[in-house]
């Protein structure tokens, strides 16, 4: 089967990756096949620092290259990890969800307590005076019978 190797420049959590195609090779999955962590058998060794991402058209899945090749029985075995964020994007983007946190304030309520927001131990003290008060000059009152 064909395996297309890429260099992925994006953080693993991005649902849209910044990919640069490196090479197209031929390989196969070592059996038994693991959906999340398959092992790819190649006829040649690759540098996972450069070939850090791949796409297998036969299963329509993108994978992270997670290990150095290990030679076994004439094949170079490379560990992969299913990039579910990319692979299932077209489906989950059709869904709605309750959002815990979001980057854009328009989709946030900042009046909710944010226990991740760092706050200094000291406080800022301000004083605000009301416009009016009692007189500074006093007057006398004399209260008498009658």
């Amino acid at each position, binding site marked *: 089967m064909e395996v297309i190797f890429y260099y992925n420049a994006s953080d693993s*959590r991005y*649902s849209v990756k910044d990919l640069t195609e490196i090479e197209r090779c031929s390989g196969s999955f070592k059996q038994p096949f693991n*959906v*999340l962590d398959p092992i790819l058998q190649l006829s040649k060794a690759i540098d996972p620092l450069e070939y850090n991402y791949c796409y297998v058209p036969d299963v329509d899945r993108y994978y992270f290259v997670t290990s150095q090749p290990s030679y076994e029985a004439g094949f170079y075995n490379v560990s992969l990890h*299913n990039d579910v*964020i990319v*692979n*299932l994007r077209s*489906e*989950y*983007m*059709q*869904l*709605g*969800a*309750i*959002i*815990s*946190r*979001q*980057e*854009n*304030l328009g*989709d*946030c*309520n*900042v*009046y*909710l*307590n*944010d226990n*991740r*927001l*760092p*706050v*200094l131990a*000291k*406080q*800022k003290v*301000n*004083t*605000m*005076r*009301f*416009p*009016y*008060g*009692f*007189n*500074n*000059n*006093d*007057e*006398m*009152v*004399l*209260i*008498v*019978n*009658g």
Partner: protein
Amino acid sequence: MATWAEVCENVRAGNVLNSSNDVFTFGKSYQGVESTWFNMRPSNTIDLPVGVDEIGTDVAYTLLDGTSWGLALAGFDSTVGGTSRMRLQLWGALPGDEHSGVNAAGRPVDYISEIGMPNYFIRTLQPNPAAVEIDVTYTISMVSLSLTDVLFPPDLYEGYQTVYITEGRADFLTSPIWKYMYDGSNVEAIGSITGNWFEYWTDLVDILASDVNEAPDYPGSSSSGGGGGAFYNINETIDIPPLPSVQAIDFGMVSIYNPNESEMKAISSWLWSDDYTENIKMNMASPMENILMCALVPLSLFAIPATFKIGNVETQFQIAKIWRQYYELDCGVLNINEFWGNFLDYSASYNIWLPYIGFRSVKPDDFVDGTIGVVYHIDLLTGAAVCFIWTRKDDNIKHVLYTYNGNIFNGIGLSGANYMSLYNQQTSAITSGINTVARAAGQAIGGDFVGAGLSLLTGLSDAKMQYDSAKPDYGRAGNNGSNTGFLSIRYPYLIQSLPISQAPNNYDMMHGSPSMLYRNLQDLHGYTEINAINLDSINASSAEKSELMNIMKSGFYI
């Protein structure tokens, strides 16, 4: 309608209908013995079977089918409670109906059965006994009715001397099945089986239906509840009250003057002159008794010159006289905007300094992003001051949310005793703080005096400002007012203690901010953490879905 307790009490007391016509009054059911019918005679002279309690005592009942004693009636399980359908038959008997024999004919109605001889019958003049079917709720200890509708039309039983109600399958009048009672004090009402009897019956049904014996909840058992919020929006204006309209100084028993320094000196000289003492010595033992209070107040007073009169003596002095007892001091407002524009603004602490009262705490929720105002109402006769703190937010509704009391008088000791009283008050204030002094004075003065009309303020008796409605309590105490308040700040101010956020650059891009909103993911971009989402519709393996859920909850970039 008699209560259940009253009915039971009547029955236990033997207050049954007593009629020479042998009106059927009570039935009773019991369990463990054959279903035996008997009439509880008012004389209470019957011999009850062994194990059967006295008249009116609640006992268990086993519904038997009447044909095979010992078997539970179909549809009833006497070992547990439940509901079932029951057929009731109404039997009527006229005078002259004969009952004789054992196992052949009915026993006399005023006889109870012997154990083991349950079969009684009465010839009925009704070939088809009136019957109704009702739903019955029963327990192993008591059978009660759950319907309160009409059971028997009155025309079916009116005119009969005796009416029996049985479970309706039997051809014979067997056991009455209901425990029923009535108000036995009204003999005439049901003495001849009239429609009133039926009313009592329905009353009884009501009683019984309301007395269903239900199993109690076990301790600690949980149950559902809630969700019935009305989501109402009631928010009414709570405004500062108007100043009182009734003034004690209008009643002629007390006056307030506003002398300046020279006038005060002149008054002092005159008070101790022979001329004054000659005039008032028949009224008071000492001229000082006529001086109720001398104090400094931090207000601009409204006064009009008038002849100075003390006691019953008019003097030659023209002194400014106070004609308005109550004053309002509006200290204005502060508009407090949010500083951070987020939850931190409402995590801040606020204290407010109130002159002649002290520091108090106020909640940011009440006025942040809104307005806070301070108004004092002052009684010049006592020095009592009530401070109203009001707020207004974006709903534009004014609320008085806080009230505190104090005293604005800076009392002046006019004698050695009074001075010592003032001194003691101030030394107390040093150890307990300004608030204590202010509150003590305010509590003693404001609440009791305002509106009292004719009460006289002494201010001279002791540190707690005793009130004397008859004569000043001279020399036992001094006016303390709120002397320490005079030495303090005389305008209110707000102290705001804000937390300081230290959010780094790109904080939202790395962490986001709290949301808890429902959104379509296609409408979002950037860093996102999911709280809840349903991935069932996604065409993927369960392992992939699980991995996806974990990533979504821990944060990813759309």
